[in-house]
């Protein structure tokens, strides 16, 4: 006989859920609060890297509130778990955009691609600081995307230049072999066009070694590395792929000093486990490195000491935490800049914030005032350039901590500009968009 009671109660639960879903009012952001949706991944295969970033992001928003908000406007925020999955990211976007979302920062190249289609229609800007499509630096085509502080082509170029410096000059790279061990996804494939371009120009041999996501199986990849004996290996991984790569490199005896990771492969979760085994491994530092400066002290004092810290206090100052701080700061500065034009002390709409992000002028003085001295270089965006800065440094793992091992290196605009423009033009042709007119740029 059918057990009706438990079944009926389950059915009732689902039905009430459906009813509630249908009638749940889109919670209106209070008229006086700026709403920041926070897309995070605190579970799943990429959680170890997603958690410190999310904590940094939320801590900065709390810090701004503790200091009085953005010219008096308080920030409200809501986290949404995406698990690095594109469809969950889209669902979070749909749910949170109705609350007056100021800006979205998906922290996933896959979700970025999907949201790039939707954001222009909903008029909400996307900040993809250090990830996303490299060609979205061209604001003439990508009106609503802001890959602030660097894209993957910048990253790849800086790495090539750094290796060139180590060899004693870019011309010494001729005849060398560089292997790219990359995450087999749009994220991992991003640097390939630039590396191919540079290899043609400088005469080094580029070897591509894809690793199937999520990257736990790399034995054959590193056996191939051992066979081919490349002079340098570039690592473009995320999540567990990074530490696995370092462990496999150790297991096959490839010198870690010859490995260079992108800024998403150069954080504490990637090397902590491997410890001494990763000693000498180099990675890009997007602008900031590890370590504490004035903004961290402020966060500790105004947020953590009041018991409001999102994560553990020891995490403050780690690489990904600081990146989260930086990304949140860029969003808040965009709002601040928009307020300068559209009314100080008012809540800004997505369109207004977009203008703010397009006209960022964060010089060193402003950055120092915000507490980012020594952490970042100036960023200034414009209609044509949504990236704002193309500098990066390299830091090396000493076995216990990250230490800077190079000066600031600027990516070569001669190579990047034409590539970005060509790719952006191709996108515009595919989507049948026209480039923005100068009048549109002024608005």
């Amino acid at each position, binding site marked *: 006989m059918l057990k009706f009671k438990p079944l009926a109660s389950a059915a009732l639960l689902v039905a009430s859920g459906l009813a509630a879903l249908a009638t749940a009012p889109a919670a209106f952001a209070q008229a006086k609060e700026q709403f920041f949706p926070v897309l995070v991944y*605190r*579970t*799943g*295969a990429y*959680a*170890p890297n997603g*958690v410190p970033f999310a904590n940094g992001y939320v801590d900065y928003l709390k810090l701004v509130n503790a200091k009085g908000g953005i010219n008096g406007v308080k920030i409200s925020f809501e986290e949404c778990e995406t698990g690095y999955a594109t469809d969950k990211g889209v669902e979070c976007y749909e749910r949170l955009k109705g609350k007056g979302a100021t800006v979205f920062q998906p922290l996933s190249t896959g979700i970025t691609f999907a949201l790039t289609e939707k954001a222009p229609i909903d008029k909400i800007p996307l900040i993809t600081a250090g990830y996303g499509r490299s060609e979205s630096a061209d604001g003439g085509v990508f009106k609503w995307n802001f890959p602030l502080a660097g894209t993957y082509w910048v990253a790849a170029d800086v790495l090539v230049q750094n290796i060139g410096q180590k060899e004693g000059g870019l011309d010494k790279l001729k005849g060398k072999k560089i292997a790219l061990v990359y995450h*087999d996804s749009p994220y991992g494939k991003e640097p390939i066009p630039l590396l191919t371009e540079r290899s043609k120009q400088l005469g080094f041999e580029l070897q*591509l*070694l*894809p*690793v*199937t996501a*999520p*990257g*736990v*199986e790399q*034995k*054959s*990849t590193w*056996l*191939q590395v*051992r*066979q081919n004996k490349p002079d340098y290996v570039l690592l473009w991984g995320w*999540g*567990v792929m990074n*530490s*696995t790569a370092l*462990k496999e490199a*150790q*297991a*096959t*005896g490839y010198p870690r000093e010859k490995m260079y990771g992108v800024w998403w492969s150069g954080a504490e*979760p990637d090397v*902590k*486990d491997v410890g001494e*085994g990763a000693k000498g491994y180099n990675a890009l530092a997007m602008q900031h490195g590890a370590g504490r400066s004035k903004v961290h002290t402020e966060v500790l004092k105004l947020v953590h000491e009041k018991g409001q810290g999102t994560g553990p206090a020891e995490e403050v100052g780690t690489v990904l935490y600081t990146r989260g701080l930086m990304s949140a700061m860029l969003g808040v500065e965009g709002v601040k800049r928009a307020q300068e034009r559209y009314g100080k002390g008012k809540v800004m709409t997505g369109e207004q914030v977009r203008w703010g992000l397009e006209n960022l002028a964060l010089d060193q003085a402003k950055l120092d005032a915000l507490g980012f001295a020594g952490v970042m270089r100036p960023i200034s965006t414009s209609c044509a350039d949504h990236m704002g800065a193309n500098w990066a440094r390299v830091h090396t793992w000493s076995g216990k901590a990250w230490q800077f091992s190079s000066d600031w290196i600027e990516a070569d605009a001669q190579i990047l500009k034409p590539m970005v423009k060509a790719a952006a033009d191709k996108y515009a042709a595919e989507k049948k968009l026209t480039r923005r007119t100068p009048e549109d740029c002024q608005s």
Partner: protein
Amino acid sequence: MGFFLETFFGGLMAGMLYSLIALGFVLIFKASGVFNFAQGAMVLFAALAMARFAEWVPHWLGTDSKLLANGIAFVLAMACMVAVAWLIERLCLSKLVNQEPIALLMATLGITYFLDGFGQMLFGSDIYKIDVGLPKDPMFLFEQTFPGGVLISQEDLAAAVIAAALVAVLALFFQKTSTGRALRAVADDHQAAQSIGIPLSRIWVIVWSVAGFAALVAGIIWGSKLGVQFSLSQVALKALPVVILGGLTSVPGAIIGGLIIGVGEKLSEVYLGPSLGGGIEIWFAYVMALLFLLFRPQGLFGEKIIDRV
């Protein structure tokens, strides 16, 4: 030639590692007829338990001895797996006894989701370390014969030895002990076993616990190699071709299948991969298993399915 040997040995050892996980599948299928898709989640859960207990035990007891910490953590993790086995038997299996295999398969998938969430809730989502003293540096053999020597990963070699030992222990357990005999009886015919007084639910708890033990050993080895983290459960997907190649009901099949798949995978990736752009490992393993199945539809050593019309 040296490199070929390197790849070959690497494949053999990788295959043994897959066999470790495949053993769990085979054990459960043999004794209860359930294809346990949750094996990957069990490996992850066991590894998480081991890693976290090994971290917490020194705090609780105030000792510094790694050996003691690992030993106690092992016992505690095993206790967790037995508890999980008992719960699964109580809440799922006994209620789904006569259902079609696909319903049971789906139930194990449901258990996978549950264990994923439960494990991460209890133990956290970070990457955790398991350190049981497995050597990390490589070993180079035959350096005179081949330039650069033949690389053998010491960690993998140790893991292969442990896997072989585990299989030997399990084989002894099944052949020589009375519980093992009871398990074989249940695998043969549930009703006949029940009619001679073998308590079915207790047997199933034992089987799932033994599979839990296999999962724990696999979890420790893989966790020590890769770090304990969510993606560990995906490794089970790599062990599936081993299971179907060897046959769902055969323990030696799991080993032989593992060796074949391991070698095939690595050789294909290293020699065939570059011409196809790389990354072909995982589907190649499945295609290999598929091709074998076309000749022997129940795997190399599996029991033939006899249809009554």
